[in-house]
């Protein structure tokens, strides 16, 4: 949890994928309502750049997405989270996790024989 999405760096989002995330949702305040003036606008630009990177390296751009809502919109947060999880389930594991699962399976098969 960060105090403001403006603190999110592109490298932090990419690290999440390196660490095994299948999808990353960034949830910031409503645009025009940032306590730090433009933190969520900066975050949107960074998420867009990561979107472009994931598309180019064929990880899948839809695995990162930014949502905006206010702190009082709990039910909306739950709806966004469910929507995003549904989308990631539909996409399946990230190519990184597919490769890692394949390697783990090969190791366990080798150990069994």
């Amino acid at each position, binding site marked *: 949890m960060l105090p403001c999405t403006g603190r999110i*760096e*592109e*490298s932090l989002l*990419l*690290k999440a*994928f*390196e660490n095994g995330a299948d999808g990353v949702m960034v949830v910031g305040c409503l645009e025009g309502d940032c306590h730090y003036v433009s933190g969520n606008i900066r975050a949107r630009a960074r998420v867009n750049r990561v979107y472009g*990177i994931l598309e*180019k*390296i*064929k*990880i899948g751009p839809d695995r990162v997405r930014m949502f905006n809502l206010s702190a009082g919109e709990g039910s909306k947060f739950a709806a966004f989270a469910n929507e995003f999880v549904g989308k990631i389930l539909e996409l399946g594991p*990230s*190519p*990184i996790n597919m*490769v*890692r699962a394949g390697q783990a399976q090969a190791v366990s098969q080798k150990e069994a024989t």
Partner: protein
Amino acid sequence: MITGTPKPIEEILEMVEPYDNIILAGCHGCVTVCRVGGEKEVQVLASTLRLAREAGGRKINIKEVCLERQCDPEYVEQMRPYVGDYQAVLSIACGAGIQFLAEKYPIMPSLPGINTGFLGVTERQGEWSERCQGCGDCVLHLTGGICPVTRCAKSLFHGPCGGSMQGICEVDKSVKCGWQLIIDRLKALNQMENYGKLKPCKGWSTARDGGPRRIIREDMI
């Protein structure tokens, strides 16, 4: 500052394809300011390369470093203790830095991660424009602080050409005529007499025409 733009990731991946163990070197100088080769860009590019390579089934180990300046020997020397442990160095400094690494570590392939641009200024976040071509014989005191070598597409020295239309250069509608800018500025400064003081013929021997240049300051050696 020296500006630059990132190379396409596909091109960088092709460059590092033969290697499994590389150094990714950024620079805290100009390329940090123009957001193409600083510490943050090192982190983003390293993650991107690791993800792309692992997704392709072949991991790459990357040592992330960011030198104070890649164009000064004392900072480049800081890599010496570990440089032999890696197969290549991918530099996202300017062309000078990349070449200096190649020169100081001749057995190590030095790969360019950016395309170096020009000597320029920041217009606003994300926009830079050229101001100086390093011709080696500055006349800015006569031209209202606007460089005819850089700002005029033809590097003319005696006023605008016939391609100047209502202050716009014929080369591109987004380019202002350098000489129109100079004359407007000289008028505003009440220095139009400087227009006539320009040298009859500029000597280009101090510019790139004489081949690679060097500066030797005897007072500093």
